């Protein structure tokens, strides 16, 4: 069963930390162990795992992605906007899914790690889809 988490970006470029929302899903389901797959269904956004502790790290990451794929007016894809066209490329570079282990009812990730939704063409209403494999429920 796929769980849908609704999120909202407030800026054109933004990183949103999903740890707490995903943890709430795990707790709600009463899961003890399992494999959690997080999927981003949007083609102008990305999903990655990195440190969230200093917000400036995320600024560095987003600035670098933007410098690798600047928003220009001469993309082949003209039907939508230049920001949208650039967003598609950024999404490819960053990727759209992450797989994380669940142990003792908690996400198994590093202390400074966040599961981060990267918005490349906001602000927008977005979704993240989550499912679990090989689960064991807490008794």
């Amino acid at each position, binding site marked *: 069963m796929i769980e849908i988490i609704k999120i909202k970006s407030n800026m054109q470029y933004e990183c949103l930390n999903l740890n707490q929302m995903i943890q709430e899903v795990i707790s709600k389901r009463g899961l003890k162990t399992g494999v959690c797959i997080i999927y981003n269904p949007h083609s102008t956004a990305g999903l990655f795992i990195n440190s969230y502790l200093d917000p400036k790290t995320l600024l560095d990451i987003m600035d670098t992605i933007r410098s690798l794929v600047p928003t220009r*007016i001469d993309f082949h894809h003209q039907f*939508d*906007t230049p*920001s949208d066209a650039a967003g598609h490329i950024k999404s490819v570079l960053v990727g759209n899914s992450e797989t994380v282990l669940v142990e003792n009812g908690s996400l198994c990730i590093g202390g400074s790690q966040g599961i981060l939704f990267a918005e490349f063409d*906001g602000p*927008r*209403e977005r979704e993240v889809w989550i499912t679990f494999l090989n689960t064991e429920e807490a008794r």
Partner: protein
Amino acid sequence: MPLDLDLARNQLFSLPELYKSNFSIIDHKIRNTLNASDLLGIKQVIIVGNGDSYFAGMASVQTFQRYTSCIYKVVQSMRFFAYEHAFIKEYSPGQTLILGISASGESKRVVQALQEGRKSVPGSKIFVICGNPDSSVARVADKVIDVSIPDKGTAPGIRSYTASLFGLLGIALRLGELQGKIHLHEANAVRSSIPLLAPHVEKVINNSLQLIEKIKALPLRNVFTVVGSGNNYGTALFSAAKFVEIAGLNATSQDLEEWLHVERFAYPLDSTVLVVAPMGKSFIHAKKMIKVAKTIGHHIICLTDNPDDRFITETVDVCIPIYEVYDELFSNLLMYIPSIPFAIAYAERLERMMFMSDNVEIKDSRQALSKRLKEEM
């Protein structure tokens, strides 16, 4: 040859299908034709057109103001050709978009206006919205927005007016999303909503037809006025033109507020006034105007999406409910429709054909004049 009222009826009843199918086609053409390099640097948009094309421009003023950061002007083509082209200010080249509108594509005055615009503002972009991409107007443009629609007869201009409104809305959205005034998904939400108006267009037509006998019963004096504000000043311009073209009425249009300053002093005191009154910024003023007009003795037909308003139900003579206008900005896409069946009803009452085509006394001179005007225009 007399122009039968069925020509207008056929166009009227075909409108729901036009909304359902053709806005998306026109919008796709706009998005495939106009890209970021065309529109990013535009700071002012000047619409140039005649008749219904000019009225469509006037009915889209608030649309451009909402969705773009551009200065927006609408100028009749003769005025632009003779006067205005020489006074276009640019702070750097390439900031001006001169957008000609011509349903037939053969309006000579629009062609002349665009040519003068190119001479006076050499860096300007000249685009046209027209129903014939191989026409004279199209040939003088840098880019052509083809708003051609399936042919259901061309006179009077009803479907072509709708197509022009669609084209202007599509261009406003395109400008806005490319310039960052609105987000792509907001523009797409508007785009998706227009075909969904089709059943409401049908409801407006049916609501209007149900009230035809009440409309016919209102006294017909030698003046008939249509008033509106915002985008619906353009609606008033178009609607009045249809009462003239279809029924030969001496119909005029006026802004809601201006009627209180000027027309309230005009005879006869018991003429019929059609008031376009969507909920929104002008609704209170519409009610004030209706109150004054009724006090004087005029008869009021009211088009509103708030027909249950107590003042409206107690005061106006005939109220046509126009539902599902979820934003006043888009009321221009529905409020023009009742003028068509009402104009047809008046034409039947007066036993007239459209464009005076049944008047044998002036037939020869009228034909000669029409021919001459067609060549000139």
